[in-house]
């Protein structure tokens, strides 16, 4: 069989790091070829080289058997290579059709843009591949899933035969993921070649034919997907055995720790973002908040932690009204918070790791005596946390947080918040952008805290995460809770419906 793409012995160096080290992959025509690897394994770099955004230091690229030099994304386009980026590159105020033909306008020299041909072609493509998009709808009015379909149509409109998907499911609901998988299969059946970049094993299992596993810039193996199990792939990716199921024992929940009553919160633009929310969490319980990003989760967390003002309603922690306390007093009342945005909130990026460990306790003994910092105590504490939570960094506790990897940054935050032994932990998106090894570790830590009797509010956009960690799951849609389910009594499908706004009849 012919190869659509061959990348032979490709090496790409960046200052201080070899992103791709003698990488060879061959993608057969008409197949779905997955690229699997942890963050920083070199997947994106490799595809950026193929798409003409980087030049390799060494190596050869062949497209359809011919050696090519791709020094510009336009060259890649001309070779029939298209890329669906993780962050869509669409113009919000244009319609789907306008976005699709952007740059390929069919026009006479001075005449107005002609949409007639374009609309016809878009409709044809849509029907052929099952990509249903209203060509006259503006992008800003579309759901994320629809926007992605516009991106795909854009590639097809340009007659791309080789499509690269960069982490395409990160922002989709389970239903949308299902649809995307169908679309990808359709594309394959119509003869297109697809490269799928992902670190989600399930997706690979569902659609891919072949999978190349990258680790630290090197090709570990290229495997046949059908005959390889998920855990085998995980092992290849991480380099060791990975436990998927977290060890979570049934136990009795204790007293109510957090009680929220009729909470209303406005967002930064003054619009109502959390609407009349009431719930509680008990000792030893993880309440998962599921939902698609932007449905009031962020505002809810800000209100619970004091970062933003509550419009009306009450928040009680261990029976004490903390609604209007300062941020500082929220922590004093017994709350810790792993924030959604680790760069904006979680860390002072230009501080050293050890300084980041004490952001809540820099002014308390033993770290501070009479206003003077005790560096010995700080170092001792920082070393302990670093060791206990396996935070790895170049210069140990003296490392500037900015230069640490995302996973280790997150581990450092978790370490800090867990170690404060608060009654209530509010944990938002704890594993976003992390690789399997780090995810496993963090999940275990969270469950561990639950087992110790802490009440935990877990907000995540990853349904898998919510399902595997939570005791109870509340789904948020448009600022309201559309349903609360026990974790063992629900499934992805039911939650997916709730996340899309459908109330469960149960």
């Amino acid at each position, binding site marked *: 069989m012919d190869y659509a793409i061959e990348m032979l012995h490709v090496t790409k160096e960046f200052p201080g790091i070899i992103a791709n080290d003698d990488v060879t992959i061959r993608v057969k025509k008409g197949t779905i070829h997955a690229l699997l690897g942890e963050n920083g394994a070199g997947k994106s770099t490799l595809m950026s080289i193929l798409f003409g955004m980087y030049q390799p230091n060494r190596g050869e690229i062949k497209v359809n058997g011919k050696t090519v030099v791709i020094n510009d994304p336009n060259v890649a386009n001309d070779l029939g290579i298209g890329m669906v980026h993780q962050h869509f590159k669409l113009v919000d105020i244009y319609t789907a059709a306008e976005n699709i033909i952007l740059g390929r306008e069919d026009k006479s020299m001075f005449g107005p843009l002609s949409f007639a041909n374009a609309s016809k072609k878009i409709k044809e493509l849509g029907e052929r591949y099952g990509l249903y998009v209203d060509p006259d709808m503006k992008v800003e009015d579309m759901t994320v899933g629809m926007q992605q379909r516009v991106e795909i149509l854009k590639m097809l409109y340009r007659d791309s035969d080789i499509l690269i998907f960069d982490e395409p499911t990160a922002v989709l609901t389970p239903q949308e993921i299902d649809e995307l998988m169908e679309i990808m299969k359709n594309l394959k059946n119509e003869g297109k070649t697809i490269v799928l970049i992902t670190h989600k094993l399930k997706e690979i299992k569902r659609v891919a034919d072949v999978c190349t596993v990258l680790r630290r810039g090197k090709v570990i193996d290229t495997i046949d997907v059908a005959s390889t199990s998920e855990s085998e792939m995980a092992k290849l990716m991480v380099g060791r055995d990975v436990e998927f199921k977290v060890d979570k024992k049934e136990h009795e929940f204790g007293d109510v720790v957090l009680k929220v009553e009729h909470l209303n919160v406005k967002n930064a633009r003054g619009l109502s973002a959390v609407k009349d929310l009431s719930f509680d969490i008990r000792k030893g319980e993880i309440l998962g908040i599921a939902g698609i990003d932007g449905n009031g989760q962020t505002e809810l967390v800000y209100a619970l932690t004091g970062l933003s003002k509550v419009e009306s309603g009450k928040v009680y922690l261990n029976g004490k009204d903390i609604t209007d306390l300062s941020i*500082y007093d*929220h922590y004093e009342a017994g709350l810790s918070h792993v924030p959604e945005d680790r760069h904006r*909130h979680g860390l002072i990026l230009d501080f050293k790791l050890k300084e980041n460990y004490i952001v809540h306790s820099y002014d308390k003994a033993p770290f501070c005596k009479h206003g003077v*910092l005790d560096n010995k105590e700080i170092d001792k504490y920082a070393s302990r946390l670093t060791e206990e939570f396996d935070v790895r960094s170049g210069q140990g506790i003296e490392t500037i947080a900015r230069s640490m990897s995302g996973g280790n940054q997150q581990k450092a935050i978790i370490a800090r918040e867990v170690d404060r032994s608060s009654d209530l932990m509010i944990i938002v998106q704890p594993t976003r952008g992390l690789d399997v090894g780090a995810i496993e570790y963090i999940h275990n830590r969270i469950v561990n805290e639950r087992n110790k009797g802490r009440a935990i509010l877990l907000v995540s956009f990853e349904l898998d995460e919510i399902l595997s960690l939570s005791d109870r799951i509340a789904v948020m849609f448009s600022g309201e809770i559309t349903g609360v389910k026990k974790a063992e009594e629900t499934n992805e499908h039911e939650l997916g419906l709730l996340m899309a706004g459908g109330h469960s009849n149960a």
Partner: protein
Amino acid sequence: MLKKYEKIIIPLVAIILGLLVGMLILLVSGLDVGALFSGLLQGATGIKSGSDLNLRYPGELLVTAIPLIFTGLAIGFAYRCGMFNIGADGQVIFGSLCAVSFALLVPLPGPLAAIGTLLAGGLGGAIWAFIPGILKVKFNISEVVTGIMLNYVALYGCNYFIRILPGSTDTKTAEIPLNASLESEFLSSITNNSRLHWGIVVVIIATILYWFIIEKTSFGYQLRATGFNKEGARYAGIKADRSVILSIMISGFLAGLAGSMLVQGTFTWGRILVASESYGFDGIAVALVGGCNALGIFLSGLLFALLSVSETILQVAGIPREIGQIISSSIIFFVAIQYIIKFFLDRSFKKKKRAVSSKEEAA
């Protein structure tokens, strides 16, 4: 390894390159390059070949350096706390006004007068800095814009108030009482009648406190955290708005002390200024070259003072005084383009490293 010394190497490279520019200009103009160095040496130490040691030069060097170090500390402090206090110039001027008014209007016994005057200047600067601080916090107005505008308000406004103080002429105020000044018979006598005053002790204490507060206290931690990431500090439970205002007020306090120094030390009267003397702006250069670090600011304050006091000596040696300014400006320029220097340093460092590792491989 390079990273570790980067903070020292970059200003050093900049200083050497700056001197190089000065020397090249002298060479091209056919002037005596040696005189530049003997001038700088004389300005720094008072040593001049063929004549007696004259300690007045190092004395005057310190006198010039004192206000520069204070404004350098002011700019550096704000910078470490995430702000650009370009309004330091106005804070110097307003600090001077407060110091001279206090000295003339509030008679206190003994050294209390000097201490009171000193603090009045500092507080004046802090108050003047409070305005951009509160505007930044409440209305999110950049402290750069308000700072620049307040510089003009201070310059012209203070001239009015200086003029209405009792005993003022149209150019200056009456002389402040002796016990309100920092003049020192002793320091002056050991430096051959220079104007060296007790401010030198104050500036050393301030430099040490700067280091201590920023690096060693929980208060400094709080201000630095806010400076690096205001939202992050807020998340941590730090009262970020309060930190912002405090940071710029402390910066203003240091700038105001520069004003006190001028009133109590360099001169012993307040002056009507026709134009800004740009102590605040020179402070930016001092802080920049000093890497906003206490010792660095102290040394770079001395360096800029040296370039300034050497102008007189250079003029005597027949070298245009502008050469001092050319060198200072070049140093600032080279520090400002430190990213370019860093780039070259990194590159040559890496080349070397690569060469070493390939040699190792070959071996």
